């Protein structure tokens, strides 16, 4: 599975890891890891938010509101609490295709 290896490499270059909620609207990042209970982490993985995958933060509601991300071609709404448990490595503008 070369693909999976590539995804893993992505997640291991983690010089700068931030919470998903701290991304700007329109910014992209690669998921490094999620913290939280067994159930939550499994659920996130099943919805496609696995380590190494690229996400784009498409919407961000003010006052600790929910965020919307695009992952694997699907739009997902995540509550602020959930989103703040997901950590990503931000992708610079030049890496955006």
């Amino acid at each position, binding site marked *: *599975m070369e*693909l*999976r290896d590539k*995804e893993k490499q992505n997640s291991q270059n983690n010089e700068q890891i931030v919470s998903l909620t701290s991304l700007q609207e329109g910014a992209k990042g690669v998921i490094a*890891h999620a913290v939280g209970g*067994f*159930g*939550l*982490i*499994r*659920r*996130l*993985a*099943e*919805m*496609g938010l*696995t*380590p*190494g*995958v690229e996400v784009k933060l498409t*919407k961000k*509601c*003010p*006052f*600790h*509101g*929910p965020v*919307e991300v695009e992952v*694997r*071609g*699907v*739009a*997902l*709404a*995540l*509550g*602020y*609490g*959930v989103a703040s448990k997901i950590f990503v490595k931000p992708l610079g503008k030049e890496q955006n295709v």
Partner: protein
Amino acid sequence: MFNGKTRAETEKNSKNKGILRIALAGNANVGKSAIFNQLTGLNQIVGNWPGKTVERAEGTLHFKGYKIRVIDLPGIYSLSTFSMEEIVSRDYIAVEKPDMIINVVDASALERNLYFTLQLLELEAPIIIALNQVDLAAKKGIRTDVQKLSEVLGIPVVPTVAITGSGINELLSTVVAVIRGELKLNPMKVRFGGEIEEKIQTLEKIVTDKLAHLCTVYPARWIAIKLLERDSDVAGKLKNYENGNAVLEYAEKIAAELEKIHGETSPVILASERYSLANKIAKETTTIESPPKISLEQKLDAITTHKILGYPILATIAALIFTIIFAGGNTLSDILNPLFASLSTHIANVLSQFLPAAAVELITQGLFGGIVAGITIALPYIIPFYVILALLEDSGYLPRAAFLMDSAMHKIGLHGKAFIPLMLGYGCSVPACVGCRIMETERERFLTAFVVILIPCAARTVVILGLVGKYVGLHAALALYAFDLVLVFALGRIAFKALPGEPVGLIMEMPPYKKPSAKIIAIKTWNRTKDFVYMAFPIIVAGSLIIEALALSGFIDYIVNASEFLISGWLGLPPVAGIPLIFGVLRKELALILLENALAQQGMVLTDLNAIQMIVFSLVVMIYIPCIATIAACMREFGWRKALAIVIVDVSLALLLGGIAYRLLSLFMNV
């Protein structure tokens, strides 16, 4: 212990009798129920899975000499044990072994959908794929190579557009061709990377050896994978086997080894593996033809979920729904009521020729009255409400509303999805109660239902507007609504703190906007109305008969006399107001009509009540005992204990608040 059929048995199963059992499986929001509706139309039975509050929709159709029974499995993203829906689905597939599974796949989100397909393949179920929403995918510039996808997966793939019915015939032809052996399934073997695959195979051998009987129901490899994923349901099944614990311990050991290598929990490792595979297949079989332009749907999405603009839009839509249901319902109700009233008099005249007066009254008021009560709620309020609900569901607006209201709902310990049943509650509490199923855990379902019942439905609105709004002023009626919201907020918070368990955060897909189809809305409305009639009518009629019998035997007068200290002493209402409050259980707007009647018997009219009495009466009607149809819905959803708990809390609360309101208002208002 397992009532499941073994694999050999299914081979000679129903096929010979010309009856086929087909299950529809797939993610939520992929048009699965649209396909189901196109297949079965009005021949549907919607009910629950035995012993579970998971919707089970089943229908039949005839095709090429086969009678085909189609079952619509719940829309889920995975076959793990996250929710009841997932367990129900995988048990149906593995244990009941339908002749064919149609996996409905959204062509515009192939990768995510294939994640589920791979799990169906792990279950070694006979599947074909309906590649749905190909039109939507084309709009996004996504083109799928159907032939190639079919080759890679080794199963037939039929492109469909469920909303228009395109491809449905081909889908059925394919099912029949596979059943007749004209088309062969050669499903892809799902294999994982390196040491993961090694470990699965080792475990699979042990499972085959030690759990021979379990392997006749579930595939050995699937059991091995689930054990590695620490699946609690499969682990539970193992405990019943002699060697179960030993296998479990071994599985735990290798899961731990795997986690040590990868630094992630085993379900995440396996999910990542499946997604990599899904990603690979999706990349191989799809091409993005043109850079996607910003479509009308996307613009609509941007506006309706806008951090500022979104809220006035939501408020406008809610107000519009409210007006349509309320105004439309009232008009229809006004047309129907006199019709039934004259019919009732006519029946009474005929019957009184050969029956004693009491029996006539029991039949006309109790039996016929109950049926009329049912019809005059169902037709004017429920049907328009169901049409609007289907429209909101199919267009994709509901998740947007949930997204906007997530922060607000967190204040009462729930998340955005709870806003959907809450909004439904302004129409009718019955579908709102059933709508609480969208919440993930039993705790959240119950919490949501508890607050949803306190929302004034259309029938309660009739009382509030017809009494307080008309005679005290609109400001007072609006104040009652505002007070209700404060109450919902406060009680929601208390219940949230009182009930044990952790709150769950929002994780919800936001499907793109779609143009709803009139046909599918009509089918949905018809089937839901049918379900409502079956569930609520017997109870409304029985309740109506019982209360009428109580009235005829003079028992009601006894209750009214006994409760006089409550009605007059505590609530400050005329003693006769007890009667409408009792009958209001049948349907809440009946409370107002009966209040008028009860007062008339005392030579009074509604306006003889003072403003405080009107407000207190409306307040009590708004909060006290849910109507009988809602109680029935609650019992079905949560069992009689919890339904009873809700009734007791609501009645005590209504009396408590009514009495306090009477005293407080008397201090401030001069009447």
